[in-house]
C-alpha cells in the first residue's frame, strides 16, 4: 500500500517537472536538472524588481518557496536521483543568466531604471 502511494506521488510530481536546460533565464552547474514547475514559477530570475515587486515577493512568497522546494527535494529522494558520486541529490544552486538579464531584460527598462534610481528608489534583481 505504502509503495503504491509512493509511486503515485512520484508519478504526480513527475508530471509537473520542468527541465532546467530549457530555462534560459537561469544557470546552474549540476547533472540533475529537474525541479517542479511550481517551484520554478516562484523564482523570478530575469525580472527587474521594483521596490513594490521586491517587497511583495519577500513578504508573501518565501514560505511558499520553502514549501515548493521541499516538494522538489521529496521528489529527488523518492525517485532516487543521485549525484555523480552516487549520493542522493539534496541541493541545487541556481543563478541568474547574465546574458538574459543584462542584454535582454534590463535594456528594455533602462530609462525607467535610470529614472527610478535618480529618484531615490531601489531596483533589484534575483542573482
Amino acid at each position, binding site marked *: 500500500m505504502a509503495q503504491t502511494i509512493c509511486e503515485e506521488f512520484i508519478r504526480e510530481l513527475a508530471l509537473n517537472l520542468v527541465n532546467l536546460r*530549457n530555462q*534560459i*533565464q537561469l544557470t546552474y552547474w549540476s547533472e540533475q536538472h529537474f525541479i517542479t514547475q511550481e517551484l520554478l514559477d516562484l523564482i523570478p530570475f*530575469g*525580472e*527587474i*524588481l*521594483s*521596490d*513594490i*515587486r*521586491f*517587497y511583495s515577493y*519577500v*513578504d*508573501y512568497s*518565501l*514560505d511558499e*518557496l*520553502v514549501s515548493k522546494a521541499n516538494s522538489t527535494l521529496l521528489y529527488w529522494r523518492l525517485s532516487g536521483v543521485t549525484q555523480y558520486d552516487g549520493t542522493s541529490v539534496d541541493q541545487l544552486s541556481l543563478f541568474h543568466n*547574465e*546574458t*538574459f*538579464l*543584462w*542584454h*535582454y*531584460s*534590463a535594456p*528594455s*527598462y*533602462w530609462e*525607467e*531604471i*535610470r*529614472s*527610478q*534610481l*535618480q*529618484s*531615490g*528608489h*531601489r*531596483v*533589484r*534583481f*534575483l*542573482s
Partner: protein
Amino acid sequence: MEFNEIRLQTNFNDNFQFIYTDSNTYQYKFANLRWQPIRTILSFPLINPPTFSLPITVPNALGRETEYQAYLAQVQNLPNNIHIQDHYWDSVDSTPANTLGPTRVNTLSTGSDTDYWTPTNFQFTSPTPESGSTNSAHPCACGTDICYCDT
C-alpha cells in the same frame, strides 16, 4: 536567495553607466526544531557606490537568441510596476491579511483592512518613528526602505 541592486555610476563624460552591487540575502536555517528566516542587508549609495560590479558587455546567448527573445516577451508581459512607485500605496487598497495565508505574524493594526501578512518579522527591524506606530492615524508596515501604509 540573493538579490543584487542596479546602480548608476558617472563616467568621465558625465554620463551614467549601469553597475550593480550586493543587496539583500534571505536564508532559512533549521535551528531549535524550526525553520528560522535570516536576513542580511547590504546597502550602498544609489549613485557612485564605492564597491560595485560591472555587468557583462558581451552577450553569450549560445545560438539561442530566439529562446531569449521568447522569454523576454514573457517577462515583458508581466505587470511592469517599475514606473508606479510614487504614491502607489495611496492608489490601491491593501489586501486583508486573512486572504493571504495562515501564518500571519504581524498585527500592526487592529482593523482587518489594515492588517498585513508576512512570513517573518522583517518589518519590525526598521520601523519609522511615526508611521510604524500602531497609534498612528495611518498605520504602516515598514520594510527596509519603504512602508506599506493604509491611507
